[in-house]
């Protein structure tokens, strides 16, 4: 184990070297070339931007990776405009990179290589139709996740996937990353909530994938497109499933004197046949940071807190809530609190969902990981995660979707400390290895992006990866869409020029 860990760690670290923190790459002042003129002719001048500021911004997302290289930035408003962009890109042999709100943490929206055209879908943000008879709503990809749920509320529905970034992330981004969120424990991830998609293929064809019927004709290409991180085309319309709002909701906050007790409670609840809507654990450090921000009454003296929510009919949720309380107490819970009303519930969830941002109070940089392990391995892997942090002299916090075994170890650091980045990446690689050794997977919801490509071969054989690559080839034989993502080097569409170091002083 020890030697394997070591080799894994060093391989991981090397994998990051081509990405991390390159000296600030800058663009030359915008040149108006034929590509830009063609794009402007197809859209409007003001919705095709080629200035250095715009391209600098579009070269980043919410991940730590630096060194993207955005080309012209397009803000289409219609499917036809996306088709036009795709065809113009083809004519100029330029790649395209779709982008929603830019909240991805794996670098999936970072344009790589030869200044790809960025397709920002933020202006395609209409809820087109609520079709209650078919149990769906047609929406454009730039609709914000929480806006959609708020929009559906008067009709008695919501969109079930609720990633922590739901107040800002877009449905298009959810589709690209097969987003999860706390409540996918009971409701399933995005893929289970997408009935149909309209996408523009890398060749500029408009494809209808899936359908409103339960078994659409042919292969489940919609299922394959969801979670493909923008590498199979650009989503232009989405039929999302409407989930009925549950009349009864109970939210419990359980405190523990050890993270292991919290993890055991989670396993115990599932083993008892209760499937809560959500089960989230935060350790002491993150709880303190969160409490400083939201003042929701999170206990700052507990080693871990478990936020558990059950929903359903009013009568049944009390049974489930009582059962969770009993299992918690049997696992040494020091306190069990039931949210008194919607306001208290909302405050508790606000704390959970803003946890990642709240740590800037402690140190200016963070690296958020995302692996999944079997629930029964949660406690052991967490202990290993803390040990990894100690070994690498780093501060680590844990906040995770415990019900799904989805870990989000958060390494916090000050990037200005010399050598700290090496330790951060070393620890990250060790966490990934520990998760995979426990029978887990590389990513639960953030995706592979540019972050975890190099780790793909730890989970999959060459044959496995080859077959994944065939999916890519069937949709995008020429590697037009978001090249350099997901598949590791050695597979087609991955071998593009990786983030080059461009001289620092180009901005003059």
């Amino acid at each position: 184990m020890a030697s394997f860990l070591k080799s894994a760690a060093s391989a991981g670290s090397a994998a990051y070297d081509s990405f991390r923190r390159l000296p600030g790459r800058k663009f030359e002042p915008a040149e108006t070339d034929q590509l830009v003129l063609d794009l402007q002719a197809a859209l409007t001048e003001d919705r095709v931007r080629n200035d250095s500021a715009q391209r600098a911004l579009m070269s980043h997302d919410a991940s730590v990776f630096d060194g993207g290289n955005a080309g012209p930035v397009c803000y289409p408003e219609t499917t036809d405009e996306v088709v036009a962009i795709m065809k113009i890109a083809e004519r100029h042999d330029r790649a395209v990179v779709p982008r929603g709100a830019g909240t991805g943490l794996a670098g999936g929206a970072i344009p790589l290589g030869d200044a790809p055209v960025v397709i920002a879908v933020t202006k395609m943000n209409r809820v087109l139709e609520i079709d209650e008879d078919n149990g769906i709503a047609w929406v454009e990809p730039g609709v914000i996740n929480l806006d959609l749920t708020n929009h559906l509320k008067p009709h008695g529905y919501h969109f079930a996937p609720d990633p922590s970034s739901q107040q800002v992330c877009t449905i298009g981004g959810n589709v690209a990353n097969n987003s999860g969120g706390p409540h996918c424990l009971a409701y399933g991830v995005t893929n289970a909530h997408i009935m149909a998609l309209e996408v523009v293929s890398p060749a500029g064809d408009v494809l209808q994938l899936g359908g409103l019927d339960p078994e659409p004709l042919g292969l489940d290409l919609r299922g394959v497109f969801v979670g493909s991180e923008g590498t199979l085309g650009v989503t232009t319309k989405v039929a999302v499933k409407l989930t009925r709002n549950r009349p009864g909701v109970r939210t419990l906050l359980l405190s523990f004197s050890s993270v292991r007790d919290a993890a055991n409670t989670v396993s115990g609840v599932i083993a008892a046949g209760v499937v809560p809507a959500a089960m989230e654990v935060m350790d002491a450090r993150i709880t303190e940071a969160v409490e400083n921000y939201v003042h929701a009454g999170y206990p700052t003296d507990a080693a871990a807190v478990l936020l558990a929510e059950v929903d359903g009919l009013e009568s049944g949720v009390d049974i489930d809530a009582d059962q969770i309380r009993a299992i918690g107490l049997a696992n040494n819970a020091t306190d069990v609190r039931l949210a008194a009303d919607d306001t208290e519930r909302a405050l508790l969830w606000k704390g959970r969902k803003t946890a990642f941002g709240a740590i800037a109070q402690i140190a200016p940089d963070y690296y958020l990981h995302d692996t999944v392990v079997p629930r029964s391995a949660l406690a052991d892997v967490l202990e290993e995660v803390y040990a990894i942090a100690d070994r690498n002299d780093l501060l680590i916090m844990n906040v995770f979707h415990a019900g799904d075994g989805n870990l989000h170890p958060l390494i916090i650091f000050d990037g200005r400390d010399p050598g700290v980045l090496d330790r951060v990446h070393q620890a990250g690689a060790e966490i990934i290895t520990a998760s995979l050794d426990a029978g887990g997977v590389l990513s639960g919801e953030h995706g592979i992006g540019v972050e975890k490509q190099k780790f793909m071969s730890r989970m999959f054989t060459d044959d496995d990866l080859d077959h994944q690559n065939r999916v890519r080839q069937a949709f995008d034989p020429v590697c037009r869409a978001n090249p350099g993502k997901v598949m590791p080097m050695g597979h087609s569409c991955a071998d593009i020029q990786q983030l080059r170091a461009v001289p620092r002083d180009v901005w003059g």
Partner: protein
Amino acid sequence: MTLGLDADDLNSCVQCGLCLPHCPTFRVTGDESMSPRGRIKLMREVQDEGAPLTAEVLRSFESCVQCRGCEPACPSGVPYGHLMEQTRETLADQKKMAPGWQRLALKPLKHPAALQAGTKALSIIQKTGLVPKRLGLPDDLPFRQEPLVASGDDVYLFTGCVMDAFQRDVHQAGQRVIEAAGFGVTPTGDLAPCCGALQAHAGLAGETRSLAEHMMRSLAPDTPILVDSAGCGAAMKDYGHLLGTDEARAFSARVFDIQEWLADNMADLPTVEPLDLRVAVQDPCHLRHVQRVHLATRVVLAPYVRELVELDDEGLCCGAGGAYSVLEPELAGQIRDRKVASIDRATPDLVASANPGCSMHLAGAGVPTIHPMELIDWALTGTR
């Protein structure tokens, strides 16, 4: 070039993007360069990486409404408002922003007489139909206004500049309500003509500081200063940060939004029949996001109207933004459209807004607005 920004403040942003939906300009444009995250990134590019101040970078900075709706949304506590004010101050000093005519336009604010005369003139011109609609001025600017008279010295009522000229009615209503609650009121009038908020927004920090110092010298110590304009109140509560002195901090500590103060001092207000109205509360940004005392508006209004309704846009800015609606009419109009749609969904009879800028801006789109103090005064006196 340096923007004079504090390195730790600038670094406190982790680029998570949670601010984006709370930014009115991002909401209507979908453009990252018109978002708080984008603007901070560009501040870093300029200050840390030597990026040039291109037209687009300047555009990014000057398009900010400075509503500070991003601040409560930010889990990292990035002091965005101060970063933007400092950026504008630096750029104004270098004559890169806030052109001369804008500085000139702000001059009369500290000369109430001139402003009153100007308003009178505008009201005449308005009646001729020559004032462009896009300026978003109220439909009928007052031609003549009754003077304000002191009734005691329990509290100051800050009367300010634009508001005193355009909406003295609000001061009068506020004064009557405070008096009805059992307190004597001294209107500040010429004692403290201008708070400096608009100057601060424009990056004219020097002028703001001298206005602040002037006001602090002019008002007697220890007396609470009530402000019925959210923007002014926010600026005056920031004197402590602006001047960095104990005296300024003590001054800021006795500045209260009028609703905030009344919520704790309304025990003796008479009980009357509530007005038969469904009233939507529109929270001025500088009340909600900066002062964060917007809940007080509900507390003081609740006994006096039949029904209070909340808007469903989570306090997103209306686009008024001090002088913003005049400087950026197009963006301000789009932002206002969003707000008006939200108001329409709430189907109120009236919209209560505790900031003159917001009221005027919304009135420009035909929204019937009223100051919370005018509503209470109406309920108490039976006349509007």
